[in-house]
C-alpha cells in the first residue's frame, strides 16, 4: 500500500532535499546577465538568415543564388546541395528516433517543399539588412502541387500524396499504393465484443484538437564557428547539446569530436528544442564563409517552421455496467505528423487508457503526414490529445449512469498489481492517492453559481530515465563542483546541487552546479521526458556516494584505522575508535586541504543509463464561468494534484505543475494553428496565436502527492509532463457543465461556444 513519504522512509532525516533554497543560477537570470542563444557576439560574426517556401506543397524546379552571392556584404549562400544527400537511417536522438534523411530534408528542403515556411536556402551576410536583401535576390522556380493539412482529409484515398515512397506500415501486409498514413499502431487485449455485450451503458464520442505550438518565449538561436582545420564550435539554445552535436555531425558527416557544442541558457523548450533547425545551416554557412555565423529565428519563423504538436481526432467507444465498471473500450487516434512521419500517436496509444483498469480494449493509432511543419515533442507528447477523448468519454459515461465523476474514476482506477494497458504490471504508483487528494480538497466543496461548471480529469505520463554523465569534484577548501551534461530549463541546477549537498553533508551554497559542454563531460541525453532530476540526479547521488567512500578511506589512512572505523556525518569523517583522532573529526575542508597526502585530488565521474523511472499521475479539477451571450470562458479556480515521487525542490515542482496547467488551459481555450485555404498559417505571431496572459489565469493550486519511487535514492520521479495531460479534458468538461453543451472540438473559442449554445437552444 502506497502512502505519502516521510523522512524515516529514506532511513535518514533529509537536511537539504525537500527544502526551497534559491537557485544557483538565479542572480544571473534576474540581473539580465545570463547568456541565451542570441546573446553571444563573436569577432567577425555574420548574420545568417533563411529563405522559406511561399507554398504549402511544391516541386522545386530551380534555385538561382547568383544575384544574392554578388551582393556586397554577402559572404555565403547555401541550399540542400551543400549538404550530404543522406540515405534513410534510423538514429536515436532527442525525444525519439530520427530518420536522418527526413531530418536533413526538413532543415533544408530537397526536391520538394512540404509546408509553407519550409527552408529552401540560407545566406550569411555582414548585416541584418544585407541578409534580408540577399534573401529577396534568391530566385526560385516552383511547380505548385495540391496540398492537404487536415488529418482526416490526408487519410482519404484521393488525398494529395506528400511522399511517393511512403507505404503504410503496420497493416500486416505492405500496400502497393503510396499513402500519407505512415504507420498504423495497434494495441488490444481481451474480448471487446464480449465487453460491450456485458455493458449496461455504451457511449460513442469524438473529440478533436487543433495543432498548438510549444510557445517558448525564446526563438531558436545559435552561433556556429567553423575553423579551417574542421574543428567547430556551436553555441546553441537547446534541451540537449549532445543531441545537437550528434544530429549536426550525422547530417553533415562530421566527426563528433570536431563538433563542440556549448550550451547557451535556454529560454523554454517544452520538447520543441530537442532537435535541430538552424545549427546545421549555421555550420555550413560558417564553413563556406570562413566566419562565425549567428542565426536567430523571428517569432514568425518559429511558428511557421518549428514543431508544433499534432492536430488530432480521437474517437472513443466505452461501455460500463450500471455499477460503473468499465467493461470495454475502443479508442481510435488520428494524429497529424506534419511534413514527415513521426507524430506522437504511439505514445497516445499507450497512454490513452493508462488510468483505467479495463479488461477488454482495442486502441488504434494513425500517424499521418500533412503539409504543415513537422511536429516536435511537446510535453507528454500525444497524451493530452488522447486524454481529451478518453476523459470526456468517461465523463459522458458517468453522466449517463448518474454517477459521480470522481466515483467512476475510483471504481476503475489502476493500482499496484494491475496490468497497465500498455503492458507492464503497475508498481509503486500513486494514482489512488492522487484521486483522494482531489476528493478531499476544499476546492471540491466550493459551491458553484449560475453559468459556472466544474470539470474533473485525470492524466498519465511514463517519465523516462536514460543516459547521463556527472563529474563531481571537491575544491581545495572543501566546496564542491557538480558538472552535468543536462541543460537547466527550469531549475535543475538547484536540484543537482541539493542532492550532492545532501549526500556530502554540506550546505547547498557550497556546491556549484555547472552545465558542461560536449567537450567537457561525457554524453548526456536531452533534458526532456521529465528525466533530469531523476536520471542525472541519480548520477549525482552515486557520484557523491563514491566520494564519501573515498573520503572515509582518506580519513582512515590519516588516523591509521580500518575504514569500518570511520563514519561520514554532517560533512565530516568521524572516528569510532577511541584515541585515534585526537584532533576530532576530519571535515571535508580538512580532507580536501590535505588531499595531496592521501592520494591526490578528490574527484569522480559517474556515467549511467538510469532505469526504473516511475510513471506519474495527475488529477485536476477546474471551475469555469461561461458568459452565455459572448461564449467567453473565465477560469475561476484550478487545483492540480500529482503523484510526484519525492519533491527535491518543492517550489520548482509546483512551478512545473502550474506551468503545465497554464499551457493546457491555453491549448483548451484559445491556442490553434489557423491555416488559409492556401495552406498558410494565418496567425503566426503572439497577437493572434493566443497563449494565456497573466490576467487569463487564476492562482493554480499545485498539490504534491509524495509516493516515493524506489528506483531513485530520494524517491524522485519526473514531474514536468504529467500536468499538461488533464487540462484539455478538464476544461471541456467544466464548460459542458457550465453551459449544458458538450463541446467536441478544441479550442473552445468564444464563437464556437456561443454557436453551440445557440444550436442547443434550437
Amino acid at each position, binding site marked *: 500500500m502506497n502512502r505519502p513519504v516521510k523522512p524515516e522512509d529514506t532511513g535518514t532525516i533529509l537536511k537539504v532535499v525537500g527544502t526551497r533554497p534559491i537557485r544557483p543560477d538565479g542572480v544571473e537570470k534576474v540581473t539580465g546577465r545570463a547568456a541565451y542563444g542570441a546573446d553571444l557576439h563573436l569577432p567577425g560574426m555574420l548574420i545568417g538568415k533563411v529563405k522559406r517556401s511561399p507554398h504549402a506543397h511544391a516541386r522545386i524546379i530551380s534555385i538561382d543564388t547568383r544575384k544574392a552571392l554578388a551582393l556586397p556584404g554577402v559572404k555565403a549562400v547555401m541550399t540542400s546541395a551543400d549538404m550530404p544527400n543522406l540515405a534513410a537511417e534510423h538514429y536515436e536522438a532527442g525525444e525519439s528516433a530520427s530518420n536522418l534523411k527526413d531530418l536533413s530534408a526538413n532543415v533544408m528542403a530537397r526536391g520538394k517543399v512540404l509546408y509553407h515556411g519550409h527552408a529552401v536556402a540560407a545566406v550569411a551576410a555582414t548585416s541584418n539588412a544585407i541578409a534580408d536583401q540577399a534573401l529577396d535576390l534568391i530566385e526560385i522556380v516552383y511547380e505548385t502541387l495540391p496540398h492537404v493539412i487536415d488529418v482526416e482529409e490526408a487519410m482519404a484515398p484521393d488525398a494529395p500524396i506528400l511522399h511517393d515512397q511512403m507505404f503504410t506500415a503496420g497493416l500486416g501486409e505492405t500496400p502497393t499504393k503510396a499513402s500519407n498514413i505512415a504507420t498504423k499502431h495497434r494495441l488490444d487485449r481481451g474480448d471487446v465484443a464480449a465487453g460491450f455485450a456485458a455493458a449496461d451503458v455504451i457511449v460513442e464520442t469524438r473529440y478533436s484538437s487543433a495543432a498548438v505550438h510549444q510557445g517558448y*518565449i525564446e526563438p531558436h538561436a545559435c552561433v556556429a564557428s567553423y575553423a579551417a582545420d574542421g574543428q567547430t564550435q556551436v553555441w546553441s539554445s537547446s534541451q540537449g547539446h549532445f543531441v545537437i552535436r550528434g544530429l549536426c555531425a550525422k547530417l553533415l558527416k562530421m566527426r563528433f569530436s570536431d563538433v563542440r557544442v556549448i550550451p547557451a541558457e535556454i529560454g523554454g523548450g517544452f520538447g520543441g528544442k530537442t532537435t535541430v533547425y538552424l545549427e546545421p545551416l549555421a555550420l555550413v554557412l560558417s564553413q563556406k564563409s570562413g566566419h562565425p555565423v549567428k542565426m536567430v529565428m523571428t517569432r514568425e519563423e518559429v511558428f511557421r517552421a518549428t514543431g508544433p504538436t499534432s492536430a488530432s481526432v480521437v474517437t472513443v467507444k466505452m461501455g460500463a455496467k450500471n455499477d460503473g465498471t468499465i467493461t470495454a473500450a475502443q479508442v481510435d487516434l488520428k494524429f497529424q505528423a506534419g511534413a514527415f512521419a513521426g507524430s506522437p500517436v504511439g505514445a497516445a496509444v499507450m497512454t490513452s487508457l493508462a488510468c483505467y483498469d479495463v479488461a477488454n480494449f482495442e486502441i488504434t493509432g494513425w500517424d499521418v503526414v500533412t503539409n504543415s511543419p513537422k511536429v516536435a515533442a511537446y510535453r507528454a507528447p500525444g497524451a493530452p490529445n488522447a486524454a481529451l477523448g478518453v476523459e470526456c468519454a468517461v465523463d459522458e459515461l458517468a453522466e449517463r449512469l448518474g454517477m459521480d465523476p470522481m466515483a467512476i474514476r475510483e471504481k476503475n482506477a489502476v493500482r499496484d498489481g494491475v496490468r497497465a494497458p500498455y503492458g507492464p504490471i503497475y508498481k509503486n504508483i500513486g494514482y489512488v492517492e492522487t484521486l483522494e487528494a482531489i476528493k478531499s480538497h476544499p476546492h471540491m466543496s466550493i459551491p458553484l453559481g449560475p453559468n459556472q461548471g466544474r470539470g474533473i480529469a485525470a492524466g498519465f505520463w511514463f517519465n523516462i530515465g536514460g543516459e547521463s554523465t556527472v563529474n563531481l569534484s571537491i575544491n581545495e577548501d572543501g566546496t564542491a563542483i557538480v558538472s552535468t551534461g543536462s541543460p537547466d530549463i527550469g531549475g535543475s541546477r538547484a536540484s543537482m546541487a541539493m542532492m550532492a549537498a545532501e549526500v556530502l553533508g554540506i550546505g547547498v551554497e557550497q556546491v556549484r552546479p555547472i552545465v558542461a559542454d560536449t567537450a567537457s563531460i561525457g554524453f548526456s541525453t536531452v533534458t526532456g521526458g521529465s528525466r533530469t532530476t531523476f536520471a542525472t540526479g541519480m548520477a549525482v547521488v552515486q557520484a557523491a556516494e563514491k566520494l564519501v567512500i573515498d573520503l572515509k578511506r582518506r580519513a582512515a589512512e590519516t588516523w591509521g584505522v580500518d575504514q569500518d572505523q570511520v563514519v561520514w556525518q554532517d560533512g565530516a569523517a568521524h572516528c569510532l575508535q577511541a584515541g585515534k583522532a585526537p584532533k576530532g573529526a576530519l571535515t571535508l575542508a580538512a580532507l580536501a586541504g590535505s588531499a595531496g597526502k592521501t592520494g591526490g585530488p578528490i574527484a569522480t565521474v559517474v556515467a549511467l543509463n538510469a532505469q526504473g523511472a516511475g510513471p506519474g499521475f495527475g488529477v485536476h479539477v477546474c471551475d469555469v464561468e461561461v458568459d452565455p451571450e459572448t461564449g467567453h470562458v473565465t477560469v475561476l479556480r484550478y487545483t492540480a494534484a500529482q503523484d510526484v515521487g519525492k519533491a527535491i525542490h518543492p517550489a520548482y515542482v509546483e512551478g512545473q505543475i502550474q506551468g503545465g496547467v497554464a499551457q493546457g488551459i491555453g491549448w483548451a481555450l484559445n491556442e490553434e494553428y489557423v491555416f488559409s485555404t492556401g495552406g498558410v498559417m494565418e496567425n503566426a505571431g503572439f497577437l493572434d496565436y493566443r497563449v494565456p496572459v497573466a490576467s487569463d489565469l487564476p492562482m493554480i493550486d499545485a498539490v504534491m502527492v509524495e509516493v516515493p519511487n524506489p528506483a531513485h535514492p530520494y524517491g524522485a520521479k519526473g514531474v514536468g509532463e504529467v500536468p499538461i495531460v488533464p487540462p484539455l479534458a478538464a476544461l471541456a468538461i467544466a464548460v459542458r457543465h457550465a453551459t449544458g453543451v458538450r463541446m467536441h472540438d478544441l479550442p473552445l473559442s468564444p464563437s464556437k461556444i456561443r454557436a453551440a449554445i445557440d444550436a442547443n437552444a434550437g
Partner: protein
Amino acid sequence: MSKQRTAAIVNGDPVEFLSDPGQTLLDVLRDELHLTGSKEGCGSGDCGACSVIMDGRLVCSCLVLAAEVEGCRVETIEGLSTGSTLHPLQQKFLDHAALQCGFCTPGILMASKALLDANPDPTESEARYWLAGNLCRCTGYDKIIKAVLDTAAELRQDRKSA
C-alpha cells in the same frame, strides 16, 4: 544609408550611439550597447520580453525607434540592482522561485517595477492586468504574481518603518 547620432541617458549614464533609421531601441541596446538583458521574443510588442522604462513609462523597446530616445532616460534590467545589491523585486523573484527558464524575467521585472512605482498597493487582479503584456510560458504566472505582491507589501512596510 545614413546613420544618425543619438544621445540618451541609459541606466543613469550618458550614452551616444549611431543607428540606422530603421533600428529599434532594442536593436541598439543589444547590438550597439551590448545590454543583452532585454530580450527579443516577438519583435511586435506582443510578449514584453524587451520591456524597458523610458522617461518613467514602461515601453516595449522593440516598438521604439532608436532615434526616438534622443534626450530620454532609459532604464533596463542591467540598471535594476544597485551595485551588487539586488532590487527587492529581484530578491523576491528568487525567494518565490518566480522564474524557470528566465528568458521573460528581465522584462517582467521591469514591468513589475513600473507597476510598483505607479501603484504601491496593487490587488492581484491589478497586477495580472498590468503584466498581461509580458508573456511567461513556464510558470503559469502564479509565483510571479505572488512575488510581485509580496514585494509590494515589503516595500510598504519599509516606507512605514522609514
